[in-house]
């Protein structure tokens, strides 16, 4: 790749993926590429005449720089695994579904829908962009599932297949039932209202003459039946369930009001007195169903329920007794099996190291930010990521018995109970319902004395008018709006009940690695390096694909590099080569100096030696997220803040001033320790938010009142939580918490306003003078008021908070 004639290389953007190309001259057709991988994809696309891929979006590819070897997908051809991906097959045609997290632009969609040009056996493919899924229809006789997965990988769109894909967890599907119910209710509502118009316009007498009144009345009745039995059924089901549990859920008075309205209307129609209140009834059902639907927001490409199984690899390379390799399912590994783990792969079970030594990255599992060194015969726990090339391991425990699995299965006891009973909406409802029932009883009793005939009239009228539908609508729309605004700011809540939980929070627990830190920064300590000396180090580092070398290059690279000769990489130790006539070495203290350095700080260091003289070392320190200090300061005003880290305490001094008190920082925490800490806080009566990002936070996230997981790439693994927050929005955390506190206040205010309509209606109802027209006017008026006010308030609130 390097030419040894001292040429200068220019950095420009890779045509395929847009990353800068610091090093070699990898070109084709006068286009520059950052690596062979990107160039290969380009060649492939060019041969299949798919270069339009590059027209829809500049640099649509994702970098293939870190990709070393192709994944072995042969396990996909096994029947039992096959079933989970195949939607349909009849021998001639097979439909298969893959989740491809790399789908991110229109070019991706175009390319994936033109797969048939890349292989004859593929008939057609179609992409669902929001879900990042592709459905491929192919001829099973011409091509196998594994070949398709490989093909996808070669063009840079490898499917994500992990244990949870196998376990039939259905991704969010369109909520068809709700839409069907809304459609039916809307249809009936509109037609009933149309047929009720003569009544509103007091053309009743006119109708009587022509016997149209009963006709319209019965038509209304027929039209209201689907609303009553189909559209409104969720309210009845929910009300019944809650009555049996002796809980006054808001659906109970609503269901009751619907039934009363219907019965009263039937009576009026059959008795030829009027045409009933069916328009109000179907209207209110229609609007409440819309509110309920609006409140449910689904994020198609996010999963809030991932557990450790989604993280573990599904298949691993087994080394058979005759030294050939085969790909088998991780869950089938037995004690004593020998497995081969390649660079960047995750170790699926607890195993013993057979190779000489290696480095493992446990940051996701335990929170330790520095890679852990392991020597031959050391026990390596499952979940770590292999860093130094390929290693051989001997399985000690099968996947179901590994330390991690045992840990996560213990969790089942600490399942948080989903107490919705204390929700604000239900509390208000209780007051409201008692009030309404007392008025109903009082007014009917009143009329019993004065004019018997009006008693039942008043009773039912009050019950119709004073339905707490306004309260339900208010909360639905307010929560729905808040969810959307938060989602716009990349703070994704699983459902609207969490808004209230978040507003009650008074203690916040942070994880360290990956949550408040985000990547590692590289600083050089030692003798002052001249520009050339630094460049020589970078030139050498650029030859290696080790993550630390790549980081050094990325951090310090400015322009052009020197050519390097005699490059040598010694696994797990360092690299050396000749550059500009000097012998350069980069590596661990042991490699460079020949001895271990007693290191109290325990951070990762890469030493730089030139011609036998140590120039210094590249120190890797955690980069803390932007705005961390401000975030912590603002949050500590009203909340108890603490830090629980699985990492060592080497950065304690740096962190103490941010948290205002040493006692709130704990290090070397195992997952169980984090869980207990949260339990202790809860015992003291605190409402706890846990903010974490990795497997080691899984238990704590479940136990806390609200669990927030932070992620920098939304398609990567996030542990099961209530909220998924993008790392970019971390600095807005105090704003989010402030915003949700207003939720209840807004609902109370809007509900109060909407009760004005109820009161007006009550005035008529109590006098037994409630005509269908009045009811039909009040209901949409109050609904529209609620929707406008709720959207308006939340929008204004968001503006003020700059969300």
């Amino acid at each position, binding site marked *: 790749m390097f030419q040894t004639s001292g040429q200068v290389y220019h950095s420009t953007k890779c045509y395929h993926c847009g990353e800068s190309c610091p090093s070699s001259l990898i070109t084709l057709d006068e286009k520059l590429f950052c690596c062979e991988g990107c160039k290969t994809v380009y060649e492939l696309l060019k041969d299949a005449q798919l270069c*339009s891929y590059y027209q*829809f979006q500049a640099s649509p590819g994702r970098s293939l720089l870190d990709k070393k070897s192709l994944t072995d997908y042969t396990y996909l051809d096994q029947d039992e695994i096959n079933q989970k991906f195949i939607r349909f097959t009849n021998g001639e045609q097979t439909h298969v579904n893959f989740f491809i997290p790399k789908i991110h632009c*229109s070019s991706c*969609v*175009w390319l994936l*829908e033109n797969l048939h040009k890349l292989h004859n056996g593929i008939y057609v493919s*179609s*992409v*669902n*962009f*929001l*879900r990042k899924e592709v459905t491929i229809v192919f001829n099973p006789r011409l091509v196998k599932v594994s070949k398709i997965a490989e093909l996808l990988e070669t063009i840079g769109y490898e499917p994500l297949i992990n244990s949870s894909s196998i376990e039939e967890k259905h991704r969010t*599907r*369109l909520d*068809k039932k709700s*839409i*069907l119910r809304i*459609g*039916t209710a809307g*249809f009936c509502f509109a*037609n009933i209202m149309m*047929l009720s118009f003569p009544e509103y316009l007091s053309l009743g007498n006119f109708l009587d003459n*022509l016997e*149209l009144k009963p*006709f319209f009345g019965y*038509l209304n009745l027929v039209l209201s039946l689907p609303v009553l039995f189909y559209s409104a059924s969720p309210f009845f089901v929910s009300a019944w369930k809650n009555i049996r549990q002796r809980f006054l859920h808001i659906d109970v008075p609503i269901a009751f009001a619907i039934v009363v309205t219907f019965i009263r209307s039937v009576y009026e129609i059959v008795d030829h007195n009027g045409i009933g209140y069916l328009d109000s009834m179907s209207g209110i059902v229609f609007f409440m169903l819309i509110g309920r639907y609006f409140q449910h927001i689904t994020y198609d490409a996010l999963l809030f329920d991932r557990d450790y199984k989604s993280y573990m690899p599904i298949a691993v390379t087994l080394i058979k007794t005759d030294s050939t390799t085969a790909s088998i399912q991780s869950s089938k590994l037995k004690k004593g099996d020998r497995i081969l783990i390649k660079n960047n792969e995750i170790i699926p079970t607890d195993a013993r190291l057979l190779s000489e030594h290696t480095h493992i990255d446990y940051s996701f599992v335990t929170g330790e930010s520095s890679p852990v060194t392991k020597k031959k015969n050391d026990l390596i726990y499952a979940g770590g990521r292999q860093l130094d090339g390929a290693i051989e391991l001997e399985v000690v425990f099968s996947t179901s018995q590994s330390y991690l699995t045992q840990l996560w299965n213990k969790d089942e006891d600490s399942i948080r109970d989903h107490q919705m009973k204390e929700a604000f909406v239900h509390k208000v409802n209780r007051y409201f319902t008692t009030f309404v029932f007392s008025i109903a009883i009082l007014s009917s009793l009143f009329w019993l004395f004065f004019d018997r005939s009006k008693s039942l009239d008043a009773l039912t009228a009050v019950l119709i008018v004073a339905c707490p539908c306004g309260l339900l609508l208010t909360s639905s729309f307010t929560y729905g709006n808040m969810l959307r605004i938060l989602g716009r700011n990349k703070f994704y809540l699983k459902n609207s009940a969490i808004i209230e939980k978040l507003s009650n929070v008074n203690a916040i627990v942070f994880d360290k690695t990956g949550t408040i830190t985000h990547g590692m920064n590289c600083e050089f300590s030692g003798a002052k390096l001249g520009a050339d000396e630094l460049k020589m180090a970078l030139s050498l580092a650029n030859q290696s694909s080790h993550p630390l070398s790549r980081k050094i290059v990325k951090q310090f690279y400015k322009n052009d590099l020197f050519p390097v000769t005699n490059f040598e990489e010694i696994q797990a130790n360092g690299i050396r080569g000749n550059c500009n006539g000097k012998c350069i070495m980069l590596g661990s203290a042991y490699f460079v100096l020949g001895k271990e350095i007693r290191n109290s700080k325990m951070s990762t260091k890469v030493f730089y030696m030139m011609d036998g003289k140590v120039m210094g070392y590249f120190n890797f320190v955690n980069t803390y997220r932007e705005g961390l200090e401000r975030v912590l300061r603002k949050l500590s005003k009203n909340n108890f803040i603490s830090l629980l880290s699985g990492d060592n305490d080497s950065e304690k001094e740096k962190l103490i001033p941010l948290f205002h008190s040493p006692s709130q920082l704990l290090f070397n925490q195992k997952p169980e320790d984090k869980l207990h800490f949260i339990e202790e806080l809860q015992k003291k009566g605190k409402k706890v938010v846990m903010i974490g990002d990795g497997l080691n936070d899984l238990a704590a996230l479940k136990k806390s009142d609200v669990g927030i997981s932070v992620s920098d790439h939304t398609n990567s693994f996030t542990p099961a939580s209530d909220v998924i927050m993008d790392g970019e929005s971390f600095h807005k955390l105090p704003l989010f918490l402030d915003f949700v506190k207003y939720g209840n206040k807004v609902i109370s205010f809007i509900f109060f306003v909407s009760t004005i309509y109820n009161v007006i209606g009550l005035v008529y109802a109590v006098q037994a003078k409630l005509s269908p027209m009045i009811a039909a006017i009040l209901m949409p008026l109050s609904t529209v008021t609620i929707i406008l006010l709720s959207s308006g308030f939340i929008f204004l609130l968001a503006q003020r908070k700059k969300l």
Partner: protein
Amino acid sequence: MSALFVLIGISLLVAFIFLLLFLWAVRSDQYEDNFTPAIRILFDNEKTSEKESNQ
């Protein structure tokens, strides 16, 4: 005015047919993905160019 009976009857029937069509459309997954089709319309239909190159 008996025309009113017929008129209302027929208009309700037509509206009802539309409702049935709506129900069918939702149930047959037509609304499953309402984002990707918007991207798809911008793609060129390359079949004609292939036909031309074949000729």
